[in-house]
């Protein structure tokens, strides 16, 4: 599997951002300014990250996400995803504010306090596989899931 790697010429700590360069070509004379060679390369594979994904972290994640790994492949997938994301470290973001959304300079639309929705119990319940009278119904309380080691047998029996 070919992981996306960063350019060799990027060092830890990041390079300063080069300014936009304008290469003007007069009409009809020189070839168009499409760069003939790739402007960057995929870099070397990164060394394995310092923090490997531990069983505790896995277990924690599974409980938080309520999605399980099923097998070692899933674990490896997560490991690779983290490794991939670690490439962000190479970018110099000093003094840069995080961006929530491109609409950060716009202001939030406010709605009038009118009752315009609701009263559609039947429509809502129609899509629920299980219901009791007009209630949605769930199994009893939040009984915690078994620990990771116990999980294998638990899943096999379910």
């Amino acid at each position, binding site marked *: 599997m070919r992981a996306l790697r960063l350019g060799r010429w990027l060092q830890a700590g990041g390079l300063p951002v080069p300014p936009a360069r304008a290469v003007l070509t007069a009409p009809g004379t020189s070839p168009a300014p499409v760069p003939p060679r790739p402007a960057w390369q995929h870099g070397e594979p990164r060394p394995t990250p310092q923090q490997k994904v531990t069983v505790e972290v896995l277990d924690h994640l599974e409980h938080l996400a309520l999605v399980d790994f099923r097998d070692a492949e899933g674990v490896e997938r997560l490991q690779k995803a983290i490794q991939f994301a670690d490439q962000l470290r190479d970018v110099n973001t000093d003094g840069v504010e995080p961006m929530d959304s491109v609409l950060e300079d716009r202001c939030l639309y406010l709605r009038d306090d009118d009752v315009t929705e609701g*009263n559609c119990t039947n429509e809502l319940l129609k899509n629920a596989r299980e219901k009791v009278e007009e209630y949605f119904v769930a199994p009893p309380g939040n009984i915690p899931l078994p*620990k990771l080691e116990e999980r294998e047998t638990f899943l096999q029996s379910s």
Partner: protein
Amino acid sequence: MAVAARGCGGVWRRAWQRGAGGPSPAPRGQRAVACNARGGAVPAGKSGLAPWEPVVGLEIHAQISSNSKLFSGSQVQFAAPPNSLVSFFDASLPGTLPVLNRRCVEAAVMTGLALNCSINKKSLFDRKHYFYADLPAGYQITQQRVPIAVNGSLSYSLCIDNKMSQMVTKTVRIKQIQLEQDSGKSLHDDTRSQTLVDLNRAGVGLMEVVMEPDMCCGEEAAAAVRELQLILQTLGSSQAVMAEGQLRVDANVSVHHPGEPYGVRTEVKNINSIRFLAKAVDYEIQRQIEELESGGTILNETRAFDSKLGCTVPMRDKEGKQDYRFMPEPNLPPLILYDAKSLPANMNHQQVVNIDLIHERLPDLPSVKRAKLVERYGILPEHSFTLLNEDGLTEFFENVVKQTQMKPKKVIGWILNDLLSYLKQHSLTVKESPVSSFLLADLLNLLEKKEISSTAAKQVLAELWKGEGKTPLEIVKEKKLELIQDQKELEQICQAVIDGQENEVMAIKAGNLKVLNKLIGLVQRETRGRSNPVVVKQLLEKKLSQ
């Protein structure tokens, strides 16, 4: 419930006494716990053990009083058929998006201003993730990074002794107020091993008010919450009725020795009334002290208050630690508020929330109202508390004062002692009172004009209470309660009593003036309460001196 919080004025006591004499441990949670009115620990008591300083902070969720929900247009209403007040967004149908209700913003700004907060002109929304049956989206939209209001304060008053004669004002800092969604309701059906989910409440707007740990006991916590409740009700930003879940309080409690760092705190939930709040906090303080004194440790856990047993119990511990994985809510750009200076020129006024305008329109807060009542009517501060504490009572009082010549200082007695106790006895609100302010004023006028005695007045009130539609005057006539105006008649009765009580007369003439009261009493009885005791006394004295 009607009176202002009773005071903290004693020493932290142990659950049981140590030392000489057999100890008989008081049942847990029932020993009154108190702390110094100045909020600090009290020097070691008799047993010589180091004193404890309890620390109490509160997280209060107030349901915003609005027609529709925070991010959707479904109705806000307490009782309704299950899942009838639920929109597609509330049910987390995929593809639905939140749209902010302007009224909720205004409510939060009002509340922030009333609590002396700085209003953040730009605030942000975040997602707080956890799974629960009554949280359909798997996350709650709240304001974790930049809430709408910060750094305020709330002043509240306590009586520092049981006599209710001296009140002291305390302040608690408000850390922040944030807007967030309420969750739905889970009804656990253990018999059929299932949970029924009703989403009517899901998405209703909440203001979470965080009070810093500046309080030190149940009474303070209760008083602070009570005052907040009054403020919210005065503003109209929340109806704040705890019984209907419009005001929910979680308490954070810890104890430590003065001078040492704060102890581990526990969170106490499931508190359904202000009275239970005080109990729960005091119980928890006591529990922690005992635990620590017997060498144990306090766990950073969540506990539920069991009102039947009067104690806190650990809530079922979730396996592993919780991580809410806060993330900015991408569907809501920043909330921008304006003031007179920053008001944009061409903006649609429906899109503008003007902090200054809201400030101008704030009604008188409870503290201001109380001060005005005291000043205007010459009543005591404690009285003003009681008036404001009871819904509609102030209005009632003022209406009576308007319609009677009796001085307010005297009227207040009738309101607080007589009317209010009747209401309490019969569990009625002021609005439900069978005795209207008009009727009471009428009655008090009769008293003021000395047409009846105060004893008679109380009898009339008892009759009025039956709500049979009779006026005070009619009752007086019916029961023949009017004071005897005929001097001669009175004199005759007095004489008759004197004639019949030789021994007492001799005692009086001998100098024992107290016995005179007995004669007055006899005359009263004879006249069936229709004699003015002052006049009777004068007549008797006159006769006896002859």
